[in-house]
């Protein structure tokens, strides 16, 4: 990329294409990060998703990240309004969104400015900018465009002005409905992607619509490709190796929903909340085909109570929410804990507290997940680290919930929810399914809470089972489910519910260490930061440093073997996306510093001086930042 010569931008739209630049040999790249950004509703999202799908079909590793404005329809041409998609395309497997962007297609200069200000672009980033604003009828827009253009050029970005609007108008009357496919055509040329695969994408997207719509989009696609070929002086190829195994590409929320399909659960109760809702949208579309249903309740509490009622009377049920909804559900979650009703609660975390940052990622709800609901309310907390784990975590959670009659909380986040990554196509197994609801008679003398002395486990009585009649209660109760306030019974039941976590812990394996089992620094993470942490570890190790990482999938209970693993390293630190006090702040010292969540958990459990570094920018932590933090930690005494 560095050896590319700077080209005079095409200034005026409507210019005849300059003499074809001639097909230069494609520059081979190991990976590239591409962004397509527009005002909301101009289709940049679709363009980006299609680009990701095409690259994945070519066999490239991809990770796509949505760029979402907080408002549904932010004002047109606004800095905060950038909507689109960011695609990291690589030769090998890609595990995260990566660092800054290498190439941007921007439909106006304001959304571009938003990305520049957010420092999301590499210093020498290539910018393909819609040029229609230069000749706009509104002189203010023209001035704003020229000012921004001059500024980004002066800042060293390589800017190409593209007459997208003008070119699209030769094909369709309203370029807003099609510029994205024109851009896709350009990108297919730039990255030497098979145009036929792009046509397939159009067929998938618009196949149900009028043939004329499909034809127009294909024309736009081809025109974009042709224009880029004739006018751009660069093109790349990112060699790909196709996997021998079938691959699927979905985002984290779709993976969660597919997991619900595969797990045999029958009911999902939910209330709309960003960024969790798209899982329920998809489930609403497909669940009934396999005998399930999505219930949109009147509020978050009702969704949780509905799920609990259904679980109590039948198979384990799921409720899907995000931070504020998770807070509202806490009392009901406590009821499920007390009544020992299996329940899966998914929290697709967003920025908090309160309404916080609805469309942005954060890992701020770990403590609420573990300690939420008043009293001692032990529950299982899991966190998928990849899109693939989103799928399998639901199946595992359902099994744990029903085996231990417990609440299992799954913590995903806005980053996993909206990112896409290919993974091996799951092969359905009957063992994923919930067993049929037990309706066999309860033997005489059996009690509804016959807590096992060692494991705390008791057989659940389900309505319909003759001889099992009892009243489940959220009040303290004895083995007969009779309300009991005597001190012994209270402790007996607290003990049993707590022992179940230990029983589960005995079945878990130590988390794998990424890198060598011993070294100078161990980084511990959980959830969506997995790919970025491991990439940073790989980079840092390649430079000769003795760093490794460990990613926790179970946060409650913590699996065995963690202490032993930590003992193999001189330093241990956590990296996560929730707040921790900055040691450099004037009044922060060891006596008052608030550590990040997993650091608190590990410090208190293992009595090890574990440091933490955290970042709450609302975006996935970049591998580059993690690498820098690790290097600093290695240097510190």
């Amino acid at each position, binding site marked *: 990329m560095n050896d590319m010569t700077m080209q005079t931008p095409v200034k005026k739209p409507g210019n005849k294409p300059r003499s074809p630049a001639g097909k230069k040999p494609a520059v081979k790249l190991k990976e590239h990060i591409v962004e397509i950004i527009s005002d909301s509703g101009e289709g940049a999202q679709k363009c980006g998703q299609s680009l990701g799908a095409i690259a994945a079909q070519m066999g490239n590793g991809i990770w796509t990240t949505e760029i979402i404005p907080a408002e549904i329809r932010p004002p047109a041409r606004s800095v905060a309004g950038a909507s689109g998609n960011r695609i990291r395309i690589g030769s090998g497997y890609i595990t995260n969104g990566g660092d800054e962007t290498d190439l941007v297609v921007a439909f106006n200069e304001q959304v571009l400015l938003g990305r520049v200000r957010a420092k999301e672009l590499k210093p020498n980033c290539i910018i393909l900018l819609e040029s229609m604003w230069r000749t706009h009828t509104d002189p203010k827009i023209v001035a704003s465009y020229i000012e921004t253009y001059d500024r980004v050029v002066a800042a060293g970005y390589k800017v190409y002005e593209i007459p997208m609007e003008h070119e699209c108008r030769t094909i369709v009357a309203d370029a807003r409905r099609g510029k994205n496919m024109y851009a896709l055509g350009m990108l297919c040329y730039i990255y030497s992607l098979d145009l036929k695969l792009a046509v397939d994408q159009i*067929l998938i997207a618009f*196949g149900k619509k009028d043939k004329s719509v499909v034809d127009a989009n294909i024309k736009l696609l081809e025109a974009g490709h042709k224009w880029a070929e004739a006018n751009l002086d660069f093109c790349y190829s990112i060699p790909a190796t196709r996997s021998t195994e079938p691959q699927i590409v979905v985002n984290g929320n779709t993976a969660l929903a*597919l997991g619900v399909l*595969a797990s045999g659960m029958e009911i999902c109760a939910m209330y709309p909340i960003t960024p969790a809702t798209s899982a329920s949208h998809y489930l609403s579309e497909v669940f009934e085909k*396999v005998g399930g249903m999505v219930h949109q309740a009147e509020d978050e509490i009702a969704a949780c109570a509905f799920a609990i009622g259904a679980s109590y009377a039948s198979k384990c049920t799921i409720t899907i929410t995000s931070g504020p909804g998770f807070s509202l559900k806490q009392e009901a979650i406590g009821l499920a804990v007390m009544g020992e009703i299996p329940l899966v609660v998914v929290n697709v975390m967003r920025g908090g507290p309160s309404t916080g940052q609805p469309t942005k990622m954060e890992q701020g709800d770990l403590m609420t997940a573990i300690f939420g609901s008043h009293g001692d309310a032990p529950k299982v907390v899991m966190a998928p680290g990849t899109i693939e784990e989103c799928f399998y975590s639901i199946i595992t959670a359902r099994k744990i919930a029903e085996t231990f009659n417990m609440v299992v909380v799954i913590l995903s986040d806005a980053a996993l929810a909206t990112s896409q990554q290919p993974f091996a196509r799951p092969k359905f197994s009957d063992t994923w399914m919930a067993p049929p609801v037990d309706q066999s008679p309860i033997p005489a003398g059996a009690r509804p809470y016959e807590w096992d002395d060692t494991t705390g486990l008791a057989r659940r009585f389900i309505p319909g089972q003759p001889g099992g009649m009892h009243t489940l209660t959220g009040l303290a109760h004895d083995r007969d489910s009779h309300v009991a306030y005597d001190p012994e019974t209270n402790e007996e039941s607290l003990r049993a519910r707590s022992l179940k976590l230990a029983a589960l812990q005995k079945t878990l394996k130590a988390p794998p260490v990424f890198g060598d089992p011993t070294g100078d620094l161990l980084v511990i993470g959980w959830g969506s930061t997995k790919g970025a942490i491991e990439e940073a570890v790989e980079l840092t190790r390649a430079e000769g440093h003795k760093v490794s990482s460990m990613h926790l999938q179970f946060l409650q209970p913590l699996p065995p073997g963690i202490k032993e693993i930590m003992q193999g390293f001189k330093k241990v630190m956590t990296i996560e996306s929730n707040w921790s006090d900055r040691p450099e702040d004037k009044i922060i010292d060891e006596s008052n510093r608030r550590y990040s969540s997993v650091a608190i958990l590990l410090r208190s459990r293992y009595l090890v001086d574990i440091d933490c570094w955290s970042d709450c920018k609302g975006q996935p932590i970049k591998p580059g930042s993690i690498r820098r933090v690790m290097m600093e930690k290695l240097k510190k005494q």
Partner: protein
Amino acid sequence: MNMMSATECLLQMCEENFELEDYQSGVPRWCTGCGDNAILAAVQRLCRDEGLRPEKTVFVSGIGCSSRFPHYMNTYGFHGIHGRALPVAEGVKMARPDLTVFVNTGDGDCCSIGAAHWIHAIRYNMNLTVFLHDNQIYGLTKKQASPTSPIGTKSNTTPRGSYLEALNPLTVTLGVQNVSFVAQAVDWIPEVLFDIVKAAYHHKGLSFVRILQRCPEWLPKSLDPWMNDPNKVQLLNHENGLQFSAGLSKVYKNQLQHDPSNMDRAREIASSTDLVPVGILYRNPSVPCYEDLRRSDKLRTAELTSVGLNAELDKYTVWPQETKEKVA
């Protein structure tokens, strides 16, 4: 299923002939004279008369005096959290339409902390029988004004009298789209209470029964004007609703012919402040039940799941493309 001989069938029928004792569990801890006792007696009688299988019957409640109800029934019971009896019951019913589900909720539980669920339960119109045990006061927490407390009610939180007009659960319920059954009973006329409970049970859809009940501990006199003067109780009588015995009619002479299919009239009657209407105010058996609209007609088998999941995975399979079904 094995074929049964005629004798076996007969024996089983005898066994399935339930007695009141089959539904009784524990000794109710309600105060002497509490209206909850009358409701319990009526409901146990209903279960026996209808031969409800105890293991196929679930009573769901929230929190409050009324919500202890399930503990005194020898059926399945769910004594949950404050205000959430209705959504729990909805979940039970959605998952298991084969179960008979009752809900016991109080005026605080239903009309205050759980008010959102109340409105929406009416909308869902699931096949549930809901008893609003309305004693116009918070009892378990020791005398605080509830939404249905008459204005001026002195309580621990309103020592100088409650400030607001009481909420009328009947008019509120009748104001919700999809309402399919609304009745009012009083604890001091057990014969009619039973008839109403029975009619509610037989209605397919959500039957909402407000039961005015005395709280001898905290509001011992609040219902006296109606108890002491039978003319202030207006029995709703109709060939499509309830019809009353001659004996009862001798005492309760104030009777009104009211066709329960007449919504406008039901709303008028419900609005009455001086008279307490008792009977079925509204009934519309043709309102669809949410569970019938929503439950999949397919069984969630491994085979169906495999087919369904693979069809979805096909859509997302990028490689190999052979497995991909093009929408062309």
